[in-house]
C-alpha cells in the first residue's frame, strides 16, 4: 500500500487526508504555514447556517493528530516532483522553524517574553505578535515558530550587529521550559515516494490595491472582507469588537462592496462565488454585535444559489434589515471624519447618489495559489486545469495528480469538502494498486 501526498492543509486538504487515513492509507500533508487550517481558520462564522467556523474546522484538525498514518510536514514547500502515477518522487523543502517541534509543547511562555513586536498576519496585520509565535490559539500542531526575518537574534539589525560582541537577545531560549529553541536549525530536504498527489493549495485574496478608485490603503476605514472577519471574530485582534482603524469607535453605518476584482475584465473574469453570501453573513454578524448598525450591500447580481442560501438572504433583508443596492461604486474619503463617501448610481433610480459610511468592507476576489513547482496546466483565471471535467472531475492534466478546493475553481466550503472526498476516492485507488491509473478509455 503506497502513500499519498496532499499539498495544502486547508479544509479541503484536511478532509482528503482524513478520508484517505480512514481507509488505512499513509498520508503526507504539506503546508507552507506553521499550522493547518488554511483560510477557514481565519473565519468566525460560516454561511448559511452561521455555525462557527472553528466548530467545523477544529475537530477535523484535531482528528488529524489521531491517525498515526497522517504525517504533517509544516512550514514546507514542494520543490520538485518527478516520476509517474503510482510512483512519484517528491522533493520537499522543510524551512527551519528554529524550534525543535518534538520538544515544544506549545506552552507559549516564549511568545510572551520575546521583545520584538511585529504585525500579526493571522489578524491581517490588525494586531501584533512576537518574533516567536504560535500561529493561532487552536493551531494544529500547536508549536512555536521563530519568524527569522524579524528575530533580532537570527537577523540582527545592521547597527546593533557591529556594536554587539556575541549573539544578541536569546530571551526565548532562556525561558523555554523544554529547551526546544534551535537557532542553528537549517532547512532540510525531505524525499518522499508517493502513489498519488492531491493539490489543495487554496487561494489568496486578490490585492485590493489594484483598484485605486476604492481607496484601499489610502482610506483608513476601508477593510477587506477577511480583515472584517477577523474584527468580528471572538479570537480576533479586538475580541469581536467592530471598531474603526481611524478612531477606534463603533461604526454606525457599514457598506459592503461586491465583485471587487471579480467579474471584471481588467482583473479577473470569473466570479468568486463565495462573496455574496459572505457579505450577507458579515452584515448579519455586524447586526448581532452592534444592534443599531445600518448595513448596506452594493452588488451587481446577488448570487444566493446554494442550499439554504436564498432563505439566508431573505432573512438578512427582513429580519436584520440589511439593505441591498444594485450599482458599482467609487469611494472618496471625507478628510476630517475619515468617513467614506460612496459615490454610486442606484441603477434602480438612474440617479447618481452619494452616501456617507463609517466603514467600508471590500468583498475581494480570490486568486488561486496555482504557481507551484509542479508543471500543471492552468485554465483561464489561473486555476489548475481539469483533464476532463465531466469524466474525471478531480484529475489534473498529469495522471495521478488531483486538484481540489479553491485552486481548482472559486467555490465555497461545502463544495470544497465534497471535492476533497472525491479526490480521496481517486487517490486511494492508485495507492491501493486496485486499478492501474485509469487510462483515458475513449479518445
Amino acid at each position, binding site marked *: 500500500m503506497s502513500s499519498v501526498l496532499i499539498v495544502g492543509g486547508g479544509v479541503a486538504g484536511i478532509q482528503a487526508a482524513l478520508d484517505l487515513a480512514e481507509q488505512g492509507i499513509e498520508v503526507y500533508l504539506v503546508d507552507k504555514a506553521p499550522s493547518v487550517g488554511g483560510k477557514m481558520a481565519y473565519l468566525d462564522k460560516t454561511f448559511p*447556517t*452561521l*455555525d462557527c467556523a472553528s466548530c467545523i474546522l477544529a475537530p477535523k484538525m484535531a482528528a488529524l493528530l489521531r491517525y498515526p498514518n497522517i504525517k504533517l510536514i509544516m512550514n514546507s514547500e514542494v520543490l520538485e516532483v518527478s516520476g509517474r502515477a503510482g510512483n512519484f518522487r517528491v522533493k520537499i523543502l522543510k524551512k527551519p522553524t528554529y524550534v525543535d517541534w518534538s520538544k515544544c509543547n506549545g506552552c507559549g511562555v516564549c511568545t510572551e517574553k520575546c521583545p520584538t513586536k511585529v504585525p500579526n498576519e493571522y489578524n491581517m496585520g490588525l494586531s501584533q505578535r512576537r518574533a516567536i509565535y504560535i500561529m493561532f490559539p487552536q493551531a494544529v500542531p500547536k508549536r512555536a515558530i521563530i519568524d527569522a526575518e524579524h528575530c533580532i537574534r537570527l537577523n540582527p539589525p545592521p547597527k546593533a550587529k557591529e556594536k554587539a560582541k556575541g549573539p544578541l537577545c536569546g530571551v526565548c531560549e532562556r525561558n523555554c521550559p523544554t529547551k526546544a529553541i534551535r537557532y542553528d536549525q537549517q532547512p532540510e530536504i525531505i524525499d518522499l515516494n508517493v502513489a498519488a498527489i492531491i493539490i489543495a493549495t487554496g487561494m489568496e485574496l486578490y490585492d485590493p490595491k489594484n483598484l485605486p478608485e476604492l481607496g484601499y490603503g489610502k482610506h483608513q476605514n476601508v477593510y477587506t472582507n477577511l480583515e472584517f472577519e477577523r474584527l468580528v471574530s471572538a479570537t480576533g485582534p479586538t475580541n469581536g469588537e467592530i471598531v474603526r482603524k481611524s478612531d477606534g469607535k463603533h461604526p454606525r453605518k457599514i457598506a459592503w462592496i461586491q465583485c471587487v476584482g471579480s467579474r471584471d475584465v481588467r482583473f479577473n473574469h470569473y466570479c468568486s462565488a463565495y462573496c455574496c453570501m459572505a457579505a450577507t453573513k458579515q452584515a448579519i454578524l455586524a447586526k448581532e454585535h452592534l444592534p443599531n448598525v445600518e448595513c448596506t450591500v452594493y452588488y451587481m447580481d446577488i448570487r444566493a444559489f446554494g442550499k439554504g442560501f436564498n432563505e439566508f438572504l431573505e*432573512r438578512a433583508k427582513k429580519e436584520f434589515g440589511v439593505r441591498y443596492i444594485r450599482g458599482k461604486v467609487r469611494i472618496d474619503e471625507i478628510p476630517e471624519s475619515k468617513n467614506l463617501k460612496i459615490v454610486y448610481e442606484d441603477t434602480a433610480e438612474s440617479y447618481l447618489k452619494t452616501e456617507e459610511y463609517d466603514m467600508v468592507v471590500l468583498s475581494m476576489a480570490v486568486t488561486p495559489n496555482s504557481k507551484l513547482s509542479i508543471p500543471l496546466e492552468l485554465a483561464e483565471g489561473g486555476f489548475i486545469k481539469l483533464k476532463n471535467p465531466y469524466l474525471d472531475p478531480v484529475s489534473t492534466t498529469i495522471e495521478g495528480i488531483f486538484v481540489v478546493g479553491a485552486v481548482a475553481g472559486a467555490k465555497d466550503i461545502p463544495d470544497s469538502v465534497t471535492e476533497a472526498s472525491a479526490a480521496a476516492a481517486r487517490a486511494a485507488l492508485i495507492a491501493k494498486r486496485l486499478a492501474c491509473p485509469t487510462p483515458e478509455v475513449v479518445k
Partner: protein
Amino acid sequence: MSDFEPKIVVYACNWCTYAATDLAGTSRMSYPENVRIIRVMCSGRVDPQFVLQAFADGADGVIVAGCHPPADCHYLEGNYKAYRRFELFRKLLESFGIEKERFRLEWISAAEASRWVQVVNEMVAELKKLGPLKKNLEVKE
C-alpha cells in the same frame, strides 16, 4: 399570575424533534426559556412514569414530541407506540385532576423548527392562563 413562569419538560425524539430544536437554534429563532429538553432516541422510548415523575416534581407542563406518522419514524413505528400509550395516559391524567392542556403529544419533523417554536409559545401561553400546577390539585371522584 402575570410573573408566573411555567416550567415545561420536553421529551424530544433524536431524529425529528431534537433536530428541529437544533434547527430553531441555527436559524436563530427565539422562544421562551421555560422548556427543558430531554433527548430520547425515539418517542416510543418515553415511559409514562417519566411524565408522572415530572408532574410530581412540579412540572407545569410536559411535551412528548416525535416524528410524523405515518412514515417519518426512524424506527418504523415508534411514534405509533407513543401515540397509543399517551392517548390512554391522557385519560389517566384527568383522573389525577391535571388539566389536559398540561400534557401535549406533538409530531414535529426535522425541518419544522417554526412548528416547534409555535408549540412552545402556545404551551407557555396556555400554562400562564392555567397557573402553576400545585395549586388546584384535588383528587377528583
